[in-house]
């Protein structure tokens, strides 16, 4: 019903509205800048909600398709076998599309960005540039989830690096520049490896001769469009899968099994760096400590999800056979992630580090869901993406407010906040309980589905992973109770710094996020229905 309005382009570039407003408002009027940014994020939230509700649940494949040719790189055709063709081009078009998975994640992006806009009220300096980079980052994130072309996906993927570099580097805490550098180099290498894998895909599976009837002049097109690549990889007769030479010389488009496995491994590593898989996670810890809390809300709420989304969209959907061969590896890495993150979170002295390690542990659950390679597992993984996004956003929102009042999150220098700030400690407790998977909140549903899915294919891994739930309960309670329960440290008592409870602008985002977390916990099919078709079509080829 929404096909006539290009809603996806509107949504992706809705932050432009805010950017223009921010540019126009002079630098001194901080209050106006904040409201302009918040209003712009709310506009994108409304658009994202409208799009998500408009998603037709039982329609296969992509909806709201928008396609416009953007880049057609003409290639040299003077070679003997090529000059017959009317056109030999690399075609990268601006094509957006949304299905259950990307629609849900786009809505999550809009929601968390608007909540982060609320939370960034604590920013003290240079609001203009802050909101500029904040909104550009939002465009990048929308683009990543909605783009249906490899080149466009890579472009938006890289486009999120620059704003994050500035956001961490300028507004972070003491060691911010080192953290910004580490973030840039790690993610740069991650996207570099991804680029190589994409190029291999474009140059082999991307090749097609799209003209329908042979009478028309021959068109040879390399395209980055995910749809064509999916077709070529799927149908055995396509250039990519036929071994004997068809184009005179050896078939240059043939994708051997080894090559497919290499591509999948590269994608796993590239997205593994983004979704921190065990060995590549150290950069994320630095960012979680040094970046300002509202930026960390976005980073751990959405940026980590891009890795998992990429793994699902390009790893599992395009190369399902390879996904099967690597399923055990992903499973083991997932369990390692869960246990490693949980045990380390147990001994941290800084609350933000506990949250960072808990993000690693929760992303391990996503990996388990993916490793299951059945509809339940994938649904669990997709659910965990959304639920962890909401929960970590809520937790970092509260951390932001706590830092603004006590400017520390060291466990031994905090305590007894429940007396001074009952509302916020209540919210922190709710966030903690949601993150340890208390039923009635979204954390439980995703854990339940992920482990359920994995139990069918790899029961032993599921059981070992389930032990992680116990340790999660331990470190969450240790962290949350150390801050809220117990006595108020004397530092905050005697010098009269009355720790006032959450103001309205802080309370609203907390309540909204908690509402979503509880809604997903009580009535999960509001999210599982749209996900349903996106994931089952993903597994159609291997009978998931």
């Amino acid at each position, binding site marked *: 019903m929404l096909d006539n309005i290009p809603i996806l382009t509107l949504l992706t570039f809705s932050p432009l509205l805010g950017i223009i407003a921010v540019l126009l408002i002079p630098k001194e009027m901080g209050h106006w800048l904040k409201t302009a940014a918040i209003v712009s994020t709310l506009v994108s939230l409304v658009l994202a909600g409208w799009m998500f509700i408009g998603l037709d649940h039982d329609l296969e494949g992509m909806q709201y398709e928008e396609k416009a040719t*953007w*880049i*057609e*790189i*003409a*290639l*040299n*055709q*003077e*070679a003997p*076998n*090529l000059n017959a063709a009317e056109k*030999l081009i*690399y075609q990268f078009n601006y094509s957006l599309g949304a299905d259950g998975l990307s629609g849900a994640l786009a809505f999550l992006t809009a929601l968390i960005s608007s909540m982060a806009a609320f939370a960034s009220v604590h920013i003290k300096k240079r609001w203009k*540039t802050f909101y500029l980079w904040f909104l550009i980052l939002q465009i990048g994130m929308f683009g990543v989830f909605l783009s249906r072309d490899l*080149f466009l996906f*890579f*472009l938006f993927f*890289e*486009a999120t*690096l*620059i704003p994050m*570099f*500035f956001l961490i*580097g*300028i507004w972070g805490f003491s060691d*911010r*520049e080192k953290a*910004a*550098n580490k973030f*840039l*180099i790690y993610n*740069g*290498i991650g996207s*570099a*490896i991804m*680029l*190589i894998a994409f*190029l*291999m895909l*474009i*140059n082999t599976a991307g090749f097609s001769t799209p003209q329908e009837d042979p009478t028309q002049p021959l068109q*040879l097109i390399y395209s980055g469009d995910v749809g064509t690549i999916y077709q070529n990889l799927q149908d055995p007769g396509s250039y990519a899968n036929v071994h004997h030479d068809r*184009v*005179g*010389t*050896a078939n*240059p488009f043939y994708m051997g099994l080894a090559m497919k496995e290499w591509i999948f491994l590269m994608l796993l590593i590239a997205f593994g760096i983004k979704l921190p898989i065990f060995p590549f996670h150290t950069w994320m810890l630095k960012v979680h400590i040094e970046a300002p809390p509202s930026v960390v809300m976005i980073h751990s709420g959405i940026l980590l999800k891009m890795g998992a989304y990429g793994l699902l969209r390009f790893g599992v959907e395009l190369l399902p056979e390879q996904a099967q061969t690597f399923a055990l590896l992903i499973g083991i890495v997932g369990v390692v992630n869960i246990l490693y993150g949980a045990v380390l979170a147990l001994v941290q002295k800084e609350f933000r580090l506990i949250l960072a390690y808990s993000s690693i542990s929760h992303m391990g659950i996503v990996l388990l869901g993916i490793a299951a390679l059945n509809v339940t597992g994938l649904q669990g993984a997709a659910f965990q993406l959304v639920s962890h996004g909401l929960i970590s956003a809520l937790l970092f929102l509260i951390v932001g407010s706590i830092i603004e009042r006590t400017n520390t999150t060291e466990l031994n220098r905090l305590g007894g906040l429940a007396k001074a700030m009952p509302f916020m400690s209540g919210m922190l407790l709710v966030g903690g309980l949601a993150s340890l998977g208390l039923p009635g909140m979204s954390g439980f549903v995703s854990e339940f589905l992920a482990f359920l899915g994995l139990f069918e294919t790899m029961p032993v891994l599921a059981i070992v992973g389930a032990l992680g739930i116990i340790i999660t309960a331990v470190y969450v309670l240790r962290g949350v109770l150390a801050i809220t329960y117990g006595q108020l440290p004397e530092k905050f008592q005697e010098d009269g710094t009355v720790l006032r409870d959450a103001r309205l602008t802080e309370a609203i985002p907390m309540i909204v996020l908690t509402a979503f977390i509880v809604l997903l916990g009580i009535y999960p099919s509001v999210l599982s229905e749209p996900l349903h078709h996106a994931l089952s079509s993903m597994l159609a080829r291997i009978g998931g």
Partner: protein
Amino acid sequence: MQMMQLAFADLRYLGPELTLVIAAILLSLLDLVVPRRFNRSWLGGLTLLSLAVSAVFVVIAMRMYNGADAEAIQLLAQSYRVDDFGNLLKLFILTGTFLTVLMSFGTVKDEDIPHQGEYYYLFLPAALGAMVMVSSGDLITLFVGLELLSITSYIMVGLKKNDQKSNESAFKYVVLGGISTAFILYGMSFLYGVTGTTNMAAMNAELRFIDPSMSGLVYMSFFLMLAGFAFKIASAPFHAWAPDVYQGAHTPVTAFLAVVSKGAALALLFRILYNVYFNVGDSDTPIHDDLFLIIAIIAAASMILGNAMALKQHNMKRLLAYSGIANAGYLLVPLAAEFGPMHYSNFTELYYYLAAYLFMNIGAFAALIAVSRSAGHEEMSAFDGLYYRNPALAAGMVILVLSLAGLPITGGFFGKFYILLGTVAVAKYWLAAIMIITSVISFYYYFGIIRQMFMRSHAPSERLHAGWAQQLTVWICAGATILMGIFPKPIIGYIEQIFHLTVDFFI
């Protein structure tokens, strides 16, 4: 041997070159005649004018003699060709020189460059030498062009007579340049010896049926010539001169060296590699594969070494020198990725990245001039707090640095992406991998500049007013970079449409 004579009618093909020669002579005479107090920047203006006129001639040539079946015009038995390969590169050289001269307005002051007039019109013979290099099909004219460019650039580097550093770097440049010329000549002598002719097409015909005993000499000829050209491009093993010369020379001259002379030398290597040494040698002595492998190794070495050395660099000119070495590596990659079954567009990739390299490098140097004039030194700290002092310049510089680093929606990004597409199409994955990983490592020092501009707030906070010329150059380059990043289609389409391998490139 039919009589080869240059008829008057042929002069109309040589429009661009003649304008430069006449302009050079007139300006040097004008400089002599005109009294001392006459402001020499008028000469700069005239130089710009002559460059523009020459560019107009080139564009006319491109439109006039082109056509689907048009045969490339060649004079004096291929010694001078007016083909689209040459025209496109002439356009590149002229824009490069134009922008370098434009950015040097206001920087040429008496105390360090005594002969101001000379400074301006010396660019003309250098540009002429480069144009001759790229449009010659014969070794001799090619050599003459190369030497004209080299010798003029020796002088330009040494123009700052009173500055000890500039003299030193000029001397280093002369000696090492001389050695590299000797290497090139020695290689050319072997090449001539083995094939008996200096015309590229004839040479290739000879080399294909060379008897194996001579293959040693063929290898020797290629290695010696490669040493010379690699020196000119400042790629890996022969890069050592670049940082000192770049630091010593006057900044616009450094820009000229980094862009125009490197680009011309690359085009020359491209022409020789694909015309003379193309599938030479047979199965047991595969000279063709060895040569292309060496080019790939040199490319990889300069990418790794260039980026590595730039990591801990604080002097901006030396940093841009090392980034120039790395970019020489990136530019060599399309050469190394030879033709594949579906991949024949090496030239377009090379040219597109060369154009992007031109804009981002000259823009960076122009911004450096503006900033170092007020800071007094050329360290990276000159950029401190630029965001506060001159936001427009800072924004322009961010775009240029993003393009240098190869991050999206900039010309540099798309150039690298296009080269990578070609390299992966030819299944040279290791080369593509090195290119990408080293360009990610380059984020570190490029973003060092951004850190200085945005994250250092303790700089003196009074506004920095950059010269109009530098501001204009930065904005032209930044605008061009953004355009090349977002709309690559028209540029690449135009190149593919007019450039035909068989007609314009193979002699």
